[in-house]
């Protein structure tokens, strides 16, 4: 058993020089059948005005074949508003929003993945799970305990290319810089890593929108993986059941 482990450990760095394999390994190590966290999101606009939102997020399934429900808990005026996201491997996700004030769910038109997520600096594309086959990867540098990769989308994207910095020791993202034709659009920093149920997890993600000079910090609290969850709790009925 220990020999097998040693062999795998020795083989990994060589195997991992292929940039696509690095990304696959990142995803493999982050794999969880379910996830739950309480998110706190602070958006600091150019004029230093701060808006705070909180939600509870639950996901079942992973990587292109998952369902998630995001339920806002603050500010008070959006408390109870819910979002059901059904991700598909081969096409854009289906999304429905539940607004308790009008007692109705509405399918959201989501053709433009560059749309910002509820006025934050994340775009919907930034929050999508990455299908490795939809990108071409190039290893640009191997230095300081990190790989620097270039990622170019094969399908339509708001970005021309992105740079990833990935830690070699635990295969975690450190930073992403995303560019369009005009230049740098967004930076995403992953901070405060902790191991939760064996999965290295960033407890804080910071996005900076270069054009708007606006910053969004997302903190993940009470994060848990592989909790027992049921498919029945990720439906339109489940979305409208709670207050």
């Amino acid at each position, binding site marked *: 058993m220990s020999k097998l482990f040693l062999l795998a450990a020795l083989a990994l760095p060589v195997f991992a020089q292929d940039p696509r394999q690095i990304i696959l390994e990142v995803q493999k190590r982050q794999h969880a059948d379910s996830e739950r966290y309480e998110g706190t999101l602070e958006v600091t606009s150019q004029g230093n005005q701060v808006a705070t939102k909180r939600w509870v997020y639950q996901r079942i399934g992973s990587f292109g074949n998952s369902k998630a429900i995001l339920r806002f808990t603050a500010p008070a005026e959006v408390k109870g508003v819910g979002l059901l996201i059904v991700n598909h491997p081969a096409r854009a996700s289906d999304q429905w929003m539940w607004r308790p004030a009008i007692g109705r769910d509405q399918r959201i038109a989501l053709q433009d993945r560059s749309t910002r997520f509820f006025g934050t600096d994340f775009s919907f594309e930034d929050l999508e799970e990455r299908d490795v086959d939809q990108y071409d990867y190039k290893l640009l540098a191997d230095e300081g305990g990190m790989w620097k990769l270039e990622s170019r989308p094969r399908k339509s994207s708001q970005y021309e290319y992105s740079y990833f910095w990935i830690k070699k020791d635990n295969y975690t993202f450190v930073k992403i810089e995303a560019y369009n034709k005009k230049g740098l659009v967004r930076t995403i920093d992953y901070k405060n890593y902790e191991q939760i149920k064996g999965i290295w997890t960033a407890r804080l993600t910071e996005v900076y929108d270069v054009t708007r000079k606006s910053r969004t910090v997302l903190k993940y609290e009470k994060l848990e993986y592989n909790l027992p969850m049921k498919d029945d709790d990720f439906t339109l009925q489940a979305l409208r059941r*709670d207050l």
Partner: protein
Amino acid sequence: MIDAGVLLVALLTQQFEQRGFIENSTAVYPQTAPNDSGRVVDDLLFREEASYKFAPWFTVSGAFDARTDSHRQTARDGVVDADDRSIQRPAFSVRRMSATIHRGKVTAEIGRQLIRWGKTDILNPTDRFAPKDYLSSVVDTDFLGVSAARVTYESGGDTVDLVWQPWFTPSRTPLLDQLWTALPPEAAGVSIVDAGARYPGGSQYGARWNHIGSGYEYSLCFFDGFQNLPSFDALLTPVTASVALTRTYPDLRLYGGDAAVPLPWLTIKGEAAYFTSSTPGAEEYALYVIQLERQVKEWSFVGGYAGSVVTRDSASPLQFAPDRGFAKSFVGRAGLTIDASRSLAIETAVRAAGSFVRFEYSQLFGQHWRATGGIAWIRGDMTDFLGEYRRNSYGSLAIRYSF
């Protein structure tokens, strides 16, 4: 002992959810109407919604409104109302009081609740269990709860919804002596009074099947009940030059459906219903809406056409029918999320004889306060549903504290 108490409080808090707001809204009308000289209407609303989860499968939910206003639109008798049948808004009303039971694929909600059907925006022909409050405006309305039992079975992409409403709730119409009742010029000098209503007895039923497929969804529905918008029986008393109007609610049967198809460039949504009635003289008609939606960065656009086809004319010319009033129009809505705190919205219905445009700017201050300012502009001929309200263009400001 103290630890047990703390644990109990923590447990109870976890199962209890609440939200609410207090809102003051002011509408300013530059023009007066022949039956209403008021230019400013102020409305104060307190709404509290709460739910308690007794068990993972059993939740009790309630919502309570308390309100008053400067224009006698709200009753001042202090009675708590639970059926929403009064012509004025009640000062205190139970908007929701229901128990929800959830076992496996079945969800049942019994009691006063909001029931919404349909997929389109601005106009929903199939939304028959959702009477509205048109008292303050016909272009900006709120929904009323209904007393009903609703059972929903959901399996995979299929949902079957069965509703039984034993107690009829009408839509609340504008008061006869106020500006949202548009009287024809011939009515000048005639006293028009409300003579009450003849509410239908019996239950209302409905069933809806919704299917979510790969890249599309649709539903079919059926409703058997009553029109929640009134027709009026008029009794003329020549000696006193007065007309007494009695509200009546014809039978209504609906066959309808809706669909949504998200495509790479836009989402198509449609909704249609055909209405028949066994009440002599009641109108029979079809209503349909087809709309396109597209999100472009922080803008969302919805545009479409609402149409109607009358297959049997009404014997009574006196009806309040905003659902058909918005038909035969191009309808649209555009929204802009400026940032996490600010948004803009524009909504319109346009046709040759009448149109309206509503513009709103909204801003959140801190975690609790929101201010929303708006302008509604209405134009058209007196022969048109929208046009008859052409004097009622208004500006509005709402300040809301949410908690």
